[in-house]
């Protein structure tokens, strides 16, 4: 666990660079995180990231790909196009949320 500077703001991140403090995130940071992993943000990307942020706030857990598809309205195929190869990891990274996890 360490702090790093993203877009001029000091934030706490874990070993893999995922932000750990929900309230330290803002859209400019999201944009900077996306650029860092080569994702070009469009309105569709923002729709997903905003859904993740709102859902996490309500439920205390990063939504799964299935939930983004059924409750967030962006289907799984599309998520793989928007965030190639590892959508679950990439979209939570950009949204400043923990990546999906199991219990061990």
């Amino acid at each position: 666990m360490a702090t790093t500077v993203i877009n001029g703001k000091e934030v706490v991140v874990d070993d893999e660079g995922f932000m750990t403090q929900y309230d330290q995130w803002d859209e400019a940071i999201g944009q900077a995180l996306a650029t860092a992993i080569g994702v070009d943000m469009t309105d569709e990307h923002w729709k997903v990231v905003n859904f993740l942020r709102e859902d996490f706030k309500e439920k205390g857990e990063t939504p799964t790909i299935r939930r983004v598809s059924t409750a967030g309205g962006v289907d799984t195929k599309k998520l793989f196009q928007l965030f190639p190869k590892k959508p679950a990891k990439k979209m939570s990274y950009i949204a400043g949320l923990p990546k999906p996890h199991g219990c061990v």
Partner: protein
Amino acid sequence: MRRLLILGGGTAGTMAANKLYKELDQGQWQITVIDADDDHRYQPGYLFMPFGTYKPSQVTKSRRATLNSGVDLQYGDIDVVRPEEQKVSLTNGREFAYDILIIATGVSPRPDQTDGMLGAQWRDSVHEFYSYDGSVTLAEKLKDWPGGRLVINIVDMPIKCPVAPLEFAFLADGYFKDKGMRDKVEMTYVTPLPGAFTKPIAAEAFGTTLDDKGIAVESDFMLMEIDNEKKALVSYDEREVPFDLLVTVPLNMGQDFIGRSGLGDELNLVPVDKFTQISTQFDTIFALGDANNIPASKAGSVAHFEIDIFVENFLQHIAGAEMSHKFDGHANCFIETGGGKAMLIDFNYDYEPLPGKFPYAGVGPMNLLKESRINHLGKLAFRWIYWNVLMPGRSMPLPALMSLKGKRTDLLETEQEKEPALSA
């Protein structure tokens, strides 16, 4: 007379009914449990049946006999809940009114939710061990399976007992070794998560366990369909994993009546307050155990600790008072690692599993996050505890809320992690 109606007479429903029966004034409250049949299954046993450790008869008891005789038990399938009228209808036309409703109908494996899962290979080379029938059928299959590519797969989270698929892999490794045919079996663990282990400290404790056992891992695998002709799993990013024998964990969902009643999320889980398990929509409805959407593991252990806290809150709620007790997401599970050994983990909403001693700091006798024989014996003894202590609603000598005593909190790196606010 006030009516408490409990849907589901499994782990959570039975514990809630038996505990509340002791607490409530029996002249004022009538407790009724509704379930489809009389077979109460010890679901943790499903993990062991495929390997012949448990016989089917050891995992089943009568619901009627497991419930206190003062609790009314009715059989039938639930059609719909009408929360505004405080009524529940069964498919056989019967109707039950309630003052308070507890939904404890759990989650079930849903092979119908993945394309191709119920195809020509179902129960032939495509198996699961999350249902009684599935576990019994898989035991038959394994008996004379000649070997080949064994693939263990999780379709999506959340699932009941999230470590069970890993345990299945470890136990299968031991099972084939004992049969002298481990060299004939190629094992792959296919998960939608970023890896087999996702919590840093637990991941370190497990270290190279999978590598050492020769189990390959395919991670970030979002299953799109099962190709029955090729006998392969196909992911959304067009990866294929071929199998001779697939043991999958189908998508887990709450019961369909929850969706029909407008009480569920996209997986038919009932949204509740994570501290009190009261419905976010109706103050006459609680959802306990796997049926709710709290961000904790779906496990009998969670239901047990949750219901200890719930009973206190319930008594306040029916007295018109504020519910002042907060469930912390506490879970405590044994993880079979094969070869007669097991690990033990203890964690909650805020703390990942940590090494240490349990239940007594410095003494144990159980070790947290460390393989030992005594942990394995603990897991086997748990079946007796389940039927004789937990289900009757007797108290365990364990606190409901997680304790940090005896845990290696020094392994956590930041102060926030060590003292998180229980408020998120």
